[in-house]
């Protein structure tokens, strides 16, 4: 059952009046008038809501880490710096129903005791900033923001801050640096933002979807919300489906939906386009490991793979991946893994902040080597070199961008090594950028006629 996108098709849902008519801002009323902040936090904890930004850290736990004893002001920051290639769910949500985010921000700020909250939006989403600011004005005019909200003694100021368009500012500490007006370099942890975040004060940073989900948790209680989904993956999740499918777009799914159903059902992606075969899937945005068709549909144990945090990561990185931010990129048999990987790596090379050495130097190195292989100038040693470089970046950097750059490379070579070898062995055949569209890749055995 849809939670976030329930009223997406109602005309004028982006305006306050229509949104209110369809049950909007109920959670604010319920929380502010009948619940204490701790009770709201407790509901979120009970719901088992996990961070929707990528790491999947339980949101209630993150909230409970907030240093409530400190005499400094507390802040809630919404991370709307959605820049992961393949992910566009937050944009859709903010563009269509901006009020669900505003409502979630008010309820969450109340739970955390924040008097000032920020929505940090990536610079490219300029039109969304205007939408959000209009929504904030409407909410303020109707008494949901500002001094003494709904006649209670709780006051909140909400600001929208545009970023400069850097991917790294989606990392929570880099986001805080950027919000403070500095260069967006990630900070070293500890201290964690829950203790010393924005302006060295206790801060919680949550994704747009996480904060929006708080509305339905407060409305229908945490226990009810926890009933949706499977195991520790509770609730619904927005999935941005893209690539070689019949119906790309944003879909709200109940966690626990089989991957096969998600790809082939007409309700969702509607199958692979042009009647082609599935080759590979990047299940959670460009930074998670890529999986070949047989491993994305079924786990290594032979069980059907589900769209959930646990099922997708079943088997570790050897045979699994991650749900990540829900950027579901599907590749059909004509896709060239090397070319796609080169594109991803080029992105990480461009977006590395340059603060710590492994990521600054390693991402550029991987990109150059992949560029060579893709354009028919690679050597066989390059493949092992890539694996080694990825291994030396992974885990050795300040922030997870290094890991995000290394995982796709390591996994692509793990599952598609033959394709890399093909590029090295037959440089003439890969000169054409659309080489596999003309003739889908067949493994060496097929080529040799075995």
């Amino acid at each position: 059952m849809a939670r976030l996108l329930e009223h997406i098709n109602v005309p004028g849902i982006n305006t306050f009046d229509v949104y209110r008519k369809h049950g909007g801002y109920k959670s604010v009323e319920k929380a502010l008038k009948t619940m204490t902040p701790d009770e709201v936090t407790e509901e979120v904890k009970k719901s088992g809501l996990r961070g929707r930004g990528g790491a999947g850290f339980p949101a209630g736990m993150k909230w409970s880490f907030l240093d409530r004893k400190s005499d400094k002001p507390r802040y809630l920051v919404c991370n709307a710096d959605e820049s992961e290639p393949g992910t566009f769910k937050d944009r859709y949500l903010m563009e269509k129903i901006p009020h669900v985010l505003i409502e979630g921000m008010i309820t969450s700020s109340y739970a955390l005791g924040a008097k000032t909250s920020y929505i940090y939006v990536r610079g490219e989403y300029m039109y969304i900033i205007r939408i959000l600011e209009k929504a904030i004005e409407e909410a303020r005019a109707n008494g949901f923001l500002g001094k003494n909200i709904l006649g209670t003694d709780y006051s909140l100021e909400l600001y929208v801050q545009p970023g400069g368009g850097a991917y790294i500012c989606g990392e929570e500490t880099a986001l805080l640096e950027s919000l403070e007006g500095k260069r967006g370099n990630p900070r070293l942890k500890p201290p964690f933002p829950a203790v010393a975040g924005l302006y060295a004060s206790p801060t919680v940073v949550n994704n747009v979807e996480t904060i929006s989900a708080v509305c339905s948790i407060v409305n229908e209680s945490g226990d009810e919300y926890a009933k949706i989904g499977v195991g520790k993956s509770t609730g619904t999740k927005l999935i941005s489906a893209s690539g070689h499918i019949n119906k790309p777009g944003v879909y709200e799914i109940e966690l626990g939906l089989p991957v096969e159903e998600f790809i082939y059902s007409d309700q969702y992606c509607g199958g692979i386009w042009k009647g082609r075969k599935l080759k590979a899937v990047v299940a959670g945005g460009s930074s998670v490991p890529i999986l070949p068709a047989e491993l994305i549909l079924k786990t290594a144990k032979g069980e059907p793979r589900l769209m959930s945090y646990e099922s997708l990561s079943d088997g570790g990185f050897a045979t699994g991946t991650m749900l990540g931010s829900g950027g579901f990129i599907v590749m059909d048999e004509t896709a060239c893994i090397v070319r796609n990987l080169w594109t991803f790596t080029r992105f990480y090379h461009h977006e590395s902040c340059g603060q710590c050495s492994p990521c600054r130097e390693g991402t550029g190195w991987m990109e150059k080597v992949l560029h060579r292989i893709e354009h028919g100038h690679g050597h066989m040693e390059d493949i092992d070199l890539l694996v080694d470089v990825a291994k030396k970046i992974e885990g050795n950097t300040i922030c997870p961008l290094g890991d995000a750059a290394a995982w796709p490379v390591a996994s692509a070579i793990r599952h598609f090594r033959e394709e890399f070898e093909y590029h090295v062995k037959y440089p003439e055949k890969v000169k054409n950028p659309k080489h596999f569209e003309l003739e889908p890749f067949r493994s060496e055995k097929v080529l040799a006629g075995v």
Partner: protein
Amino acid sequence: MAKVTIDGIEVEVADGTTILNAARQIGGEVVPPAMCYYSSLKDTGGKCRVCLVKVTQGSAKDPRPMPKLVASCRTPVMDGMVVQNITSQEVLEARKGVVEFLLINHPLDCPICDQAGECDLQNLAYEHGAAKTRYEEDRRTFEKIDIGDKIKLHMTRCILCYRCTFVADQLTNERVHGVINRGDASEISTYIEKAVDNEFSGNMIDVCPVGALTDKTFRFKSRVWFTKPLDAHRNCDKCCGKVVLWTKGDDVLRVSARKDQYGEVKEYICNECRYDHKNMNDWTIEGPRHIDKHSVISQNHYEKIDMQKLKLDIERQIQFQKGKQLPETNQSPA
């Protein structure tokens, strides 16, 4: 006080001490190298990743190991922490990787670099690097910029340790330079090529671990190992006035601040001392400077060996090889 064990050697240090500083209290081989951390500058460290160590036991209370290698320069010790540095193959592998990363875009123009002979990157590469490069692409280059008449910036040699920006932030009134751009295109630059001109800006040269910032008044004058370092001082109303004169015969070729055994300046000097007193008569000479015998600068410089200290050093080494706890030594900073 917190008890921490580094490579099997136990040491008791004050709460809040970082792993790196705890290792420095032990001294010797267990000290992780540091390219960006600078103890006298606040908030430095964590960027170069050469000081990575493995924490196999978080603390006495919570004995779980830390999931990733941690930057020892910014990780505070906990009571009962167990750390592996050179005894962990994983750490040595990671460090080798970082050195390789630092070197792939480094121009390796040591034969014409003024820093050669006293370069932290040379030492690091010698100790932890590989003999061959696996990098066959073009090395990155930058457009040359002029940052003033006293300091020469070679951006291609820079490893982006950010130390010079911390010097400008913490020692001088106004920072006019910083890091611009992103990723491997990041570079040190001034606001629209403004000159770095401040009373203490010369300290940027001393804190630079590589040859990215060098002294224009010493440029191409001599290789450092042909010069004779002398400790000297003068009465200066701006700084401590304690310097090292790098001399050749009676000529003072260069004046720099005094560095300790980890290559760190404790007492910064002003630009007047550094650039304007290149005359032996301006200084009270204290005597020849002690240079570590492993340094290339100590070639042909003889000094009397402290037999007592040598004996202790050898005993320490023997016991370390046996994996025993090291006895306290009086390792005086050079």
